[in-house]
């Protein structure tokens, strides 16, 4: 999900949390601070890249997808849709 929020372009943690909340219509109400360790893990795995930027006088750590992150997102999305389709068939 975190990778998917960055598909539209780079974003900082605050915006990523906003996107998660908006896209899930409030379904994923999580402690906002727990998103950052997950972002750090994805960065260590080479799926994200990040750097500090100053926007309107405020320092922000901006995250973006790496090439590996993009291909991983595409693969996981495909796997998820296949699983979701199978579940629909079973539950229908």
């Amino acid at each position, binding site marked *: 999900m975190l990778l998917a929020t960055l598909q539209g372009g780079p974003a*900082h*943690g*605050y915006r990523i*949390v906003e996107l998660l909340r908006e896209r899930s219509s409030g379904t994923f109400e*999580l*402690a*906002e*601070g*727990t998103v*950052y*360790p*997950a972002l*750090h*893990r994805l960065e*260590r795995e080479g799926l994200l890249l990040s750097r500090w930027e100053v926007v309107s006088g*405020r*320092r*922000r*750590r901006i995250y973006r997808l790496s090439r590996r992150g993009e291909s991983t997102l595409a693969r996981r999305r495909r796997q998820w849709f296949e699983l979701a389709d199978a579940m629909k068939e079973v539950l229908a």
Partner: protein
Amino acid sequence: MTIEAYLRELGRLLPSTRRTRFLREAESHLRETAAALVAKGVEPGEAERRATEAFGPVEVVARAFCEESARHATRRATVLTLGALILLVLPLYGIPENTLPPATWAVKPADLAWAQQLATGLWLASLAFGVVAVTAAVFDRAPLARAGLALAVAAGAASCLAAGYAAARWLGEVPGSEASAVLGGSGAVALLAFAGAGLAWATSKREHLPR
């Protein structure tokens, strides 16, 4: 809770690894949340309280961060351990058999042969534990990785001792040997690498917060 107090408490619970960066990101997030609330007409003190509440209880956030740090430290330690194991090959057989003057004995002294075999056996055991640790770390099985790492370090250290004894005996038995510095250096490098691996392992364990 104010943002200042929240960050102070969070900083107290976090491990040293990446603490500064995480605290900066947390502060940036909290101040942005509070500013957005103030812009909606919320009183500043109440905005800070709501921002810290949404960020999550300090213990929950710190635990998530510590678990991530521990996972990374375990992986780092396993890589160090494998590096140390590879280095151990030098003091075991590479140097004594190939670079020292030819041995003068017709039959190798029993204790020397025994020490070499013991060192090799322990090294192989250490290598096996190291492979288990790396595999477990790759598949995010942190407890198994740490156990494998601990055993690899213990077996590796014991192998170092046995190899050191064998090297000392070899140098004593073969006149004209001048490779003591090389042998000592190789052993020291291996021991240092093991110490580093052990340290990283200890760190990975320390970075777990009690539940």
